[in-house]
């Protein structure tokens, strides 16, 4: 398994990129920390130099990287420049909100996109197929930051059916989740349609038809399992896309997740927060892709044959 073999290498790479990210950021950690402690008054040069030494900031780049990694592995992603509180603690507190949003959006995209894709392929050429293809085109061209305010305008401001912002109740989850899932839903639908269409033209499907099975049985028993395999592979990418989109959606809807934390970090030039967020999400994304990869191999027996053959 190539993925498992490259996993440690990717982990090291991710850590190097994330470390360099903060290293390139403007501002000196010691100076910023002292300024915060002195309530905004610029500290003396000596005080900054002393703290730099204490924090180990004057060490060479590889040494600092080594220290940072050994802290990060133990779950310590440093402290916020602004509040001085632990970044991993804050990420941990906010993660459930983001996970709730992202998994609801993914579930919505899967529950609507895949059945619509199957339907469009089976009813190829009908008005239903046309409508689905239009929806796919529209979904790919409307970004979440247009969709979200538009939904808010319609359902919260004009119709007053749903709350515009906030976190906690199921009603407050609906608009952000729909806005986040729309693009992914359209993409899954397009992919499922293409995949089912391809499978329907395969020889074994013709054999099944020749045996006299009804079209419904053919599609459900023989077609879907094979058609959905390529769809499974993009679920990893979709998760990454949804986690990225969550940054925007959380900002719009005042959703107290990790994305909002990161954007606040950027606007306040709180770079360790940005760095911590990137590491955190990259590791989650890596694990999701690993799970997708493993389940794909498990679902597709042909891949086992390949391995035995070589």
């Amino acid at each position, binding site marked *: 398994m190539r993925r498992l073999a490259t996993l440690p290498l990717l982990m090291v*790479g991710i850590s190097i990129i994330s470390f360099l990210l903060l290293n390139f950021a403007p501002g000196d950690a010691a100076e910023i920390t002292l300024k915060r402690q002195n309530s905004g008054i610029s500290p003396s040069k000596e005080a900054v130099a002393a703290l730099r030494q204490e924090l180990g900031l004057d060490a060479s780049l590889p040494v600092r990287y080594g220290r940072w990694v050994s802290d990060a592995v133990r779950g310590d992603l440093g402290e916020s420049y602004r509040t001085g509180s632990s970044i991993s603690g804050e990420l941990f507190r906010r993660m459930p909100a983001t996970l709730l949003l992202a998994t609801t959006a993914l579930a919505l995209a899967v529950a609507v996109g895949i059945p619509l894709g199957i339907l469009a392929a089976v009813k190829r050429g009908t008005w239903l197929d046309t409508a689905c293809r239009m929806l796919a085109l529209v979904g*790919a061209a409307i970004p979440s*930051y247009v969709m979200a305010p538009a939904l808010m305008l319609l359902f919260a401001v004009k119709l007053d059916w749903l709350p515009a912002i906030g976190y906690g109740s199921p009603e407050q989850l609906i608009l952000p989740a729909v806005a986040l899932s729309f693009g992914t839903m359209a993409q899954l639908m397009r992919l499922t349609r293409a995949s089912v269409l391809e499978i329907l033209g395969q020889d074994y499907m013709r054999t099944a038809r020749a045996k006299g099975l009804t079209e419904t049985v053919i599609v459900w028993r023989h077609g879907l399992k094979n058609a959905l395999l390529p769809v499974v592979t993009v679920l990893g990418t979709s998760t990454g896309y949804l*986690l*990225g*989109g969550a940054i925007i959606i959380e900002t719009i809807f005042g959703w107290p997740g990790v994305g909002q934390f990161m954007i606040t970090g950027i606007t306040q030039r709180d770079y360790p927060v940005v760095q911590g*967020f990137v590491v955190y999400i*990259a590791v989650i994304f890596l694990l999701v892709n690993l799970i997708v990869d493993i389940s794909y191999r498990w679902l597709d027996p042909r891949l086992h044959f390949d391995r035995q053959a070589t």
Partner: protein
Amino acid sequence: MEGIPGQTARRPSALDRMRQDPGAILGFIIVAAAILTAFLAPWLPLNDPTDLNLDNRLLPPSAEFLLGTDHLGRDELSRIIFGARFTLLMAGSTVAIIMLIALVVGSLSGYYGGWIDISLMLVVDLLLAFPSLILGVAVAGILGPSLINVMIAVSIVWWASHARVIRGMVLAARQREYVEAARAIGASDRRIVVFHISRNILGPFVVLATLDMGWIILGIAGLSFLGLGAQPPTPEWGAMLNDSRSYMQTSPLLLLAPGSAIFLLVLGFNLLGDGIRDMLDTTTYR
């Protein structure tokens, strides 16, 4: 259908096929209209897009301001049209940078193989290990808010997947007879890559670039929406969307205008890209 003896009817050419594709025509019209309007913007009878007038703030559409005015009394229509200029210029140059990096890296990797291939693809794998929007936001955020930094951030996160695609195409092209023939007559590596392989992967390359325009427009506008890109008073669609959120209740047009502009232009490029792909891809021709 092809190759049937006695069949004399002319096989439809690529352009004929594109003419029969209403989606591609629509895409072409949208993109052409946007480019033309954006190009002509300075000569059109429009108000200055950055001219503030607080007496005119949040006006509804009128003869003077066809789409009304924004929260600082600026003409919304001229901001949308000048916004098209920024969007097309930035997305166009970003796509050019991305494709150039991808072409160089992909060709080196695919043509030479060996340790060059392994190390370049490791960098690609590494960049793809991050969700692209998240790395883009982080890089743009750390570089500081500006349009140039957004272009840099988008280029950094976006070239990797294309480099892999181009590597695959070069790898396949390398084994073809025409490359063998070129090598046999003593062509240099550079000449083979630049003249023979590049020319033969041009089609998929154009499709990739056209479809990319849509993604890059969305990415740049998204980062600007988050306040990382265009700074006031630049008329940029993502930034305009962000500004309009506070006034959506009273002036929904300020939200709908840039939103529709982004949607239409991205739709146009996507339709055009799909159309060009179908046109070049003879396997879907039946």
